[in-house]
């Protein structure tokens, strides 16, 4: 294997997977040719990708930009209140239409030749009204292309493939936990973001497990905070989505032995059964509820060796002022790239990425009941639950397995 650049020996689709089901070849994390294939088979293939929540664009004209693989997206709410997801490119010469991360516009004008689109994506203006253009030219023939979209409790999913099964079936058992994370009804209010660039392959980020939490994140031990009680992981076949639930527990002293401001670990929700929830979908979308933090994670690969992660934080529309302030303060300092219980993740992802340049396989152990058969029953702290997702990945990429 070439250890200096992204690449490997031989054709990418000849990479063989071990007979042992708990092993994954490291090569797949560091080959650019595999990343190019993943774009086609996964990111542009028959999967749903969470890209936004309607609460990020609550008013007519609100928009945000994002990417699906390498395709720039323009996500907006039109004048009629409808949510749309367009290709973020002028239909004339392909110029990126909108550059801002977020904003509010009732029309999008391309600076190159001033073609202009309204909030529904309809072309509304060309210089000279199209005079001298191709025969039969009309505005109606050149709207912004739309992606196929579906929403769940305001969470917006997109797919480029018309054959992708309906979202409801794709979500499966994840739906209930996801709804719980979003306050049950998805009536959310955006309160902010943490955006960070991880120096790792997208699959390294997507492969995060709950086994590591009390081991890597020292805060749990220091606060004498043992979570995961009565925790289980529900697996959605065949995709390997994971919906994890566990009873919320808190340190007995609320962290007072370490912290001057114990509001960081305060739980003001009414039901501790809904205090700790995690959803990890294939390929990348994630959602987390820790204490009173409502967090949706919109993630996208930036090439084969980097991943952009947008933590979006929300309050619920029914929150009073005190709860709103609490969520803002807790969201800022508890998780994310400077979060008390999560800062360490990004450094480990990068070290995993570097280590993936060595030959061989990574392995899973915690929760593995057999290396020749898959099981689907996992406790909250098992890492082997990720193997279902890995098998789905292997099958759609077409990698062979040793027998």
């Amino acid at each position, binding site marked *: 294997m070439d250890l200096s650049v992204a690449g490997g020996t031989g054709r990418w689709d000849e990479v063989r997977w071990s007979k042992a089901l708990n092993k994954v070849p490291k090569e797949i994390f560091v080959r650019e040719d595999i990343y190019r294939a993943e774009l086609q088979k996964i990111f542009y293939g028959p999967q749903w990708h969470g890209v936004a929540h309607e609460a990020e664009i609550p008013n007519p004209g609100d928009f945000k930009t994002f990417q699906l693989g390498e395709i720039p997206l323009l996500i907006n709410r039109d004048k009629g209140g409808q949510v749309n997801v367009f290709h973020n490119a002028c239909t004339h010469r392909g110029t990126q239409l909108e550059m801002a991360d977020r904003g509010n516009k009732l029309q999008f004008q391309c600076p190159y030749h001033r073609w202009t689109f309204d909030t529904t994506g309809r072309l509304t203006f060309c210089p000279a009204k199209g005079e001298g253009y191709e025969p039969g030219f009309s505005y109606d023939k050149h709207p912004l292309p739309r992606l196929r979209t579906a929403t769940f409790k305001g969470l917006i999913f997109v797919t480029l493939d018309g054959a992708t099964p309906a979202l409801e079936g794709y979500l499966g058992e994840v739906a209930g936990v996801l709804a719980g994370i979003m306050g049950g009804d998805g009536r959310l209010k955006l309160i902010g*973001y943490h955006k960070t660039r991880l120096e790792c392959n997208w699959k390294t980020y997507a492969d995060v497990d709950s086994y590591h939490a009390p081991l890597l994140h020292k805060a749990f031990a220091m606060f004498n905070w043992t979570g995961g009680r009565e925790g289980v992981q529900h697996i959605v076949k065949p995709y390997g989505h994971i919906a994890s639930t566990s009873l919320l527990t808190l340190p007995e002293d609320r962290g007072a032995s370490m912290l001057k*401001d114990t509001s960081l670990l305060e739980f003001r929700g009414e039901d501790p059964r809904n205090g700790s929830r995690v959803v990890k979908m294939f390929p990348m979308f994630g959602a987390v509820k820790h204490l009173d933090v409502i967090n949706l994670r919109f993630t996208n690969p930036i090439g084969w060796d980097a991943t952009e992660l947008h933590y979006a934080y929300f309050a619920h529309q029914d929150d009073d002022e005190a709860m709103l302030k609490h969520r803002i303060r807790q969201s800022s*300092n508890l998780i994310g*790239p*400077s979060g*008390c219980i999560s*800062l360490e993740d*990004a450094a480990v992802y990068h070290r995993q990425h570097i280590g993936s340049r060595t030959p061989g396989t990574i392995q899973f152990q915690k929760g593995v009941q057999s290396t020749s058969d898959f099981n689907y029953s996992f406790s909250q702290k098992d890492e082997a639950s990720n193997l279902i997702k890995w098998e789905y990945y292997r099958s759609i990429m077409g990698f062979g397995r040793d027998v």
Partner: protein
Amino acid sequence: MVALDELQLRYVDALDRRDMKSWLASFSQKGEASYICTTAESVEGNLPVSMMLDDCRARLEDRVTFITKIWAGTFQDYRMRHFVQRIHQERDGDLWRVRTNFRVTCTPIGRDQRTDTVAGVYEDVVDCSGAEPLFLSKRAIADDSVLPRYLVYPI
């Protein structure tokens, strides 16, 4: 203004040395003393969640605990160099409101890494009522909405 600059230099020197005790000492002892690290996107979008939201003296002290005790030994450390330039100041009784541009390089200690840069502006309120000027509030606003990897230390 010399005193304002001296305070700012004490602050950035503390961070460049990763000396969190000295960092904390640059803030007022008052309960409302605060440090916020956020992005221009969040400020312009009226989005209050911040990368670091230490809106009281207790949280400033907890920031030091995060770095020196809770996270110690768990992350790849990095060296920082802060470059600052005061661009505006305005007096309000015992308080000075000061804007200062910053550029911070973060260079991980170890192999296979690159130097990241964060640029932006400090919006500070300096309390000059005591024996020496101290920050009553400091808000670091990064220009880039996507920050590199992770931020262990305040900017």
